[in-house]
């Protein structure tokens, strides 16, 4: 990111301690993660030790220190989803993507995350991919849902398997 953009983010939120989280949220939204260089710049500019930025970035689950994939797959593990079999949906997602939660597929297409309740419990188990809610998901449906997001690469091959 250009430094001017970072400066803009800082000045829009205010160059003070209480703005750290909003600033980091904006960087996360832009990059899909918090790149090291950007954090270093912020640290200097806002006069907050890098170690503290790291501590905040690792404490809150909406930040990521590694790049996330093109699609974010969030499997809700709220209680309502859990009692309706969300763990089996998660197992199936892991199997189909061949990654564990908080990991990204090698081709950078999918990042898998679990989330503690999205507040749409009536539709549980829920999988949210990017901004799409897939309600009443069953393990048996996972493959078909993921398929909607799989892009086709230049060779015409499916890139995720």
């Amino acid at each position, binding site marked *: 990111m250009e430094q001017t953009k970072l400066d803009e983010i800082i000045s829009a939120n205010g160059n003070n301690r209480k703005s750290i989280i909003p600033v980091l949220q904006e960087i996360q939204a832009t990059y899909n993660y918090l790149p090291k260089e950007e954090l270093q710049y912020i640290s200097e500019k806002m006069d907050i030790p890098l170690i503290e930025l790291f501590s905040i970035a690792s404490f809150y689950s909406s930040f990521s220190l590694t790049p996330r994939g093109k699609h974010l797959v969030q499997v809700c593990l709220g209680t309502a989803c859990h009692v309706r079999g969300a763990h089996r949906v998660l197992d199936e997602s892991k199997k189909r993507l061949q990654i564990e939660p908080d990991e990204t597929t090698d081709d950078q297409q999918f990042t898998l995350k679990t989330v503690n309740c999205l507040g749409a419990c009536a539709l549980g188990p829920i999988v949210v991919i990017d901004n799409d*809610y897939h309600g009443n998901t069953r393990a048996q449906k996972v493959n078909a849902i993921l398929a909607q997001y799989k892009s086709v690469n230049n060779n015409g091959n499916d890139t995720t398997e």
Partner: protein
Amino acid sequence: MPKLTADDLIKIRKKARDTINLRKGTDRAKITVHMGTCGIASGANDIMEAVLQEIETRNIKDIIVTSSGCAGFCSKEPMATVDLPGKPPVKYVELTKEKIIKIFSEHILDGKIVDKFALAIGSERIY
């Protein structure tokens, strides 16, 4: 906009209430699509789109299309409420595009409640 006074509030209230209750006399129906997170997740956007499409293709000007938040009955989403002047509201549930189009032509345009998609007539109780 100038700051409101207590009297301004009352004026706004009166005017807005007449519009909402279809008492202005210019609107012949109101359709409210319930669009909280649950509703949207179950497909309320498609319902809204279908309604707007109907309005556009039929070139209708006197029907209010509006949205509101969650209607509370999540397992029946997507939901919509149809109001006709002087008639109790009718709640429709578990909507699909096809259902709302039917409701549009039969209930909104023709005044006949589509029984098989309707959940209830009337409004919720407020203490």
